[in-house]
């Protein structure tokens, strides 16, 4: 592989967590006021993709599945240095759980002839972390999740990842193609360069693929999702005393009482 690796980075648009509120009267979620942003952990995925391109050469293509406004997260990725972007958008995708979502991303990655697919650890809105291993499973590719750092070895066609595991770490050599989920906070994402950012916002146009372009129109969407959200309840909020104490002695009294 003289001309480097085809690196695909998966980016998801999510509501800004700080602005999602629960209506205390109706108990419903109020997401309407929340601006949509790039999933925080995906900044780490994009950074790893760019760093990988710097060490092995090749291209970085950002992909997202979502409604047309999700184009914004592709612009964010292109603004910091991704070469291009693909928007998977189609009404047929609506209501997909992680099974069809990872199918669509897997098909797109295969279409792009990916050597490495890099994802975030999990999304901040539904936080399953199931999409990266799902992509790997759909394509029969290797997977590296909870990755702290990457060490590419192009001469052997493997990507070595240092994974965070209970009680320590492990280093795993994975055959290409491989799907990676970077640990949230694994690196310091670079800022966007001014010119690149202007390019991303004015000239960049993503490639758009529908479900039928990927040949999966009968396998995605709500109807093809094994899980169904049966109900959403507001959790009974934990009642706290919220007593402000003025001195450590006073705090000690309270602690002595509860112990």
């Amino acid at each position, binding site marked *: 592989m003289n001309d480097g690796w085809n690196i695909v980075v998966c980016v998801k648009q999510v509501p800004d967590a700080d602005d999602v509120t629960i209506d205390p009267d109706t108990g419903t979620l109020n997401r309407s006021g929340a601006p949509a942003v790039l999933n925080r952990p995906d900044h780490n995925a994009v950074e790893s993709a760019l760093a990988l391109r710097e060490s092995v050469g090749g291209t970085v293509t950002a992909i997202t599945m979502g409604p047309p406004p999700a184009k914004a997260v592709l612009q964010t990725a292109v603004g910091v240095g991704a070469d291009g972007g693909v928007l998977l958008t189609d009404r047929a995708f609506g209501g997909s759980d992680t099974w069809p979502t990872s199918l669509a991303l897997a098909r797109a990655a295969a279409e792009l002839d990916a050597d490495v697919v890099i994802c975030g650890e999990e999304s901040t809105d539904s936080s399953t972390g*199931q999409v990266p291993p799902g992509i790997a499973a759909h394509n029969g590719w290797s997977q590296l999740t909870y990755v702290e750092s990457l060490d590419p070895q192009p001469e052997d066609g493997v990507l070595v990842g240092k994974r965070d595991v*209970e009680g320590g770490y492990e280093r795993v050599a994975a055959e290409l193609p491989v799907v990676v989920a970077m640990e949230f906070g694994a690196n310091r994402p670079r800022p966007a360069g001014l010119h690149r950012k202007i390019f991303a916002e004015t000239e960049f146009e993503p490639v758009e693929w529908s479900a039928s372009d990927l040949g999966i129109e009968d396998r995605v969407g709500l109807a093809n999702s094994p899980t169904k959200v049966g109900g959403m309840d507001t959790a009974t909020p934990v009642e706290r005393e919220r*007593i402000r104490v003025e001195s450590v002695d006073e705090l000690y009294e309270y602690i*002595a009482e509860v112990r």
Partner: protein
Amino acid sequence: MTIETDDYRDVWVFVEQHDGTAAPVSWELLAKGRELADETDESLVALVMGDDVSDLAEEAVARGADRALLADDAVFEPYRADPYGEQFRALVEARKPSIVLIGGTHTGRDFAGRVAVPAHAGLTADCTELAVDDEGLLLASRPTFGGDAMATIKCPAHRPQMATVRAGVFDTSEPTESDVERAAAVEEVEVVVAEEDALSTVLERVVSDVVDITDADVVVAGGAGCEGEVGPIVELAEVLGGEVAASRAAVDEGWIEPARQVGQTGKTVRPHLYIAAGISGAVQHLEGMNDSDVVVAVNTDPNAAIFEHADYGIVGDLHEVLPKLTELVREQQEVAA
């Protein structure tokens, strides 16, 4: 794709193990799995994979499983997603479990996400409540939006119904001196994967004993506000006879070990007393500590969100407040002694 859901029976628990030691969450799931199996009048089956781990399969029976399936082969140590996944797929195809429970650890989530795809199973992530409805459907509930809401997820038309479950949420199962012949309840299954087919190689594995903070009665947690100096946290935990814990920020900085992280991607703790020092109170942190009986917050910022989620809050520098508190506790203990 439609399947005959009635063909699927039994509750399986994946017994996650590393080097012959079971992850504590596996035994918690066995206890919860027992309840579910009793309710649906099905068997509880432990799935044990590893190298030379028949003792764990027997232990699972002692802890309440009706049977254990044992896939014993060097290819299963250490854990890798693809051999585990392929073996699991074959077992599910042949034996058709209705419910499969897996610990929400890094290994468990890596495994579950991989195997749910070929099985075309529904997989609910990171559950904190499990029940079955009148028809025997699994009701898997998970906190969303920082614990402000609970989403209950069902899987009506696909099998198995899979869920990963957060560690520390359910009580553990204890081994009993049961009258079943343990070894007789263990079935060694055919291993269908071979090393040549593996897509990855573990080059190095560095792990030490993992502390378990989930059962602690007192927890003192430090955050970014420690600024690298965690002595005050450790000393207060020590005099209170409690465990040290951390926010993800303090773990990422390397000040406190990852096994002590509390929150959505860490542990759920349920102590009598939780002291959060230098922690802002992000939703992902609150999720892991909301079940504490009494919460104390120490923070320099009077507007920190953590104060809204605390019983007693003090505005101050933890490097001053905690040592003073430690001193007061120590004095009192000396008086009492």
